[in-house]
């Protein structure tokens, strides 16, 4: 009986120590949860507050006269589904990017935009998050 007493005392002490640690960790986790929850609320409030302000400044200069509206794109330019202005823009972009002599053989719109929408969106966001140097 006497030999069991120290074991029992040790077991109770260990149990109490575990309970104390459990309480300590519960408080720690609650602090982390509360602080990040509070931060989430603050961030949401800041976003709401900022959304009240106009995002673009109105120009103080007098408004320039409107350019004349171009005539509608002729039907021939839309034969492959790409307006002539867009083809010109693509050609100009390729000309600027590729210094070597080149020739554009074919321009084709994405066949199934639904299928690639997510990859295009993902790529757009990844590029947006990087600073180009």
């Amino acid at each position: 009986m006497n030999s069991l007493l120290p074991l029992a005392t040790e077991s109770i002490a260990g149990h109490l120590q575990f309970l104390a640690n459990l309480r300590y960790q519960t408080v720690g986790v609650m602090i982390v949860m509360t602080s990040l929850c509070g931060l989430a609320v603050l961030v949401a409030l800041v976003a709401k507050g900022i959304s009240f302000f106009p995002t673009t400044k109105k120009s103080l200069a007098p408004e320039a006269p409107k350019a004349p509206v171009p005539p509608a794109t002729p039907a021939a330019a839309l034969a492959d589904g790409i307006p002539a202005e867009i083809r010109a823009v693509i050609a100009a972009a390729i000309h600027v990017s590729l210094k070597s002599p080149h020739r554009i053989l074919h321009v084709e719109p994405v066949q199934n935009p639904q299928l690639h929408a997510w990859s295009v969106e993902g790529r757009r966001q990844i590029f947006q998050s990087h600073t180009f140097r």
Partner: protein
Amino acid sequence: MLKDFLDFFTLTGFPEITWQMPVMWVVCLVLFYLAVYKGFEPLLLVPIAFGALLANLPAPSLTIEPPGPVLSTMSGRLVEWHVAPGAMVKEDDLLATLQSDDLEKPALIEFRSPSHGQLTELTVTPGESLQVGQKLATIFSKEPGGLFYYISRGIEWEIFPPLIFLGVGALTDFGPLLARPITLLLGAAAQLGVAMTFLAASFLGFTAGESASIAIIGGADGPTAIFLTAKLAPHLLPAIAVAAYSYMALVPMIQPPIMRALTTMPERLIRMKSLRKVSKLEKLVFALVVTVFCILLVPAAASLIGMLMLGNFFRECGVTDRLVKASQNEIINVITIFLGTSVGITMTGERFLKPETLLILSLGVIAFSVSTASGVIMAKILNLFLPEKINPLIGSAGVSAVPMAARVSQVEGQRADPTNFLLMHAMGPNVAGVIGTAVIAGYYIATLR
């Protein structure tokens, strides 16, 4: 001639080789292999492994303290001196026996010489009580301290981890987090792994400071783990740093089985709405709000949070381009070299080849696994209340390990649906995990130091 040769041999490092050194060379080779051929966090494991190799060569001149005042590292009482004034001492020679008043430490502790030179004075007499930092004696020598003694001050004086955080802040885009602030809760939930591991480590007999240092491995944030361990259990630094960085590299192997086990196929197929564009003003205000809020909450983590947000403010303000580039490249690269080698130099065989190292490595896996599981489960709980469901696979990214954990969410999401892109959604909880780990580290430091 033979005698001259033998005399020279005694001056070389060969007679100083101990059995632990070759064993540690093998450990270093394993680390080199993992870093160089397997690509496991090479930017840190290579300097750590090289530092460890240097630590396990008989070259005490690398780490020796400069001569000067010898300070007590503990509070208690001086039992007896083993040397007399005027004696020549070498590094690691036994100087005195001290009695600790810390119940978690052994009663009698051997106090060894931190440097070499002549012992010019003893300022404490046997029986006298001691305080941490109290001067015990003075050692005189014309030689300065070793190279790594000075470099390691960066860890001891808590300089390197905050500077790494400066670079991390300059590299981090908090946009995904701001676009969906609810993901902050996923970063918070992942800290449950830290708490559970603390309990497990404590149950296995580690002290509170040691348990906190081991548990923080679950936060998957190397600089925070080093920062906390240097404060609470510096003697465990080598094992904890190696475990933290190795497991971070193993995230793609540890997390996926847990993520698959805790989610159903319909949950893995959930598509999340594209994130809204976050304005520059929001990002700037966020950096300031986090700085003020978190430092007020846990002042002990002020240097980590402050530098993280300073780096992020540089990035987002758009007028400090040179500082952003310096933080993202030169500063973080230089500090990474010093941090890695300083950690490695502490990996001496005597400190690393212990049963407790294996225990720490095992507890590290538990910490990572529970953190991953808690993030996923929290996402599932949130889905019970949110009108717009979130894919629970992004919950695992709540462990920091930026951006590896977010990439794992992306890969797992694409296994279920190749056209589902979760990467940017997972970046929210991923960066929230960095803040969450810093907060819990601050809690431990504030309460245990």
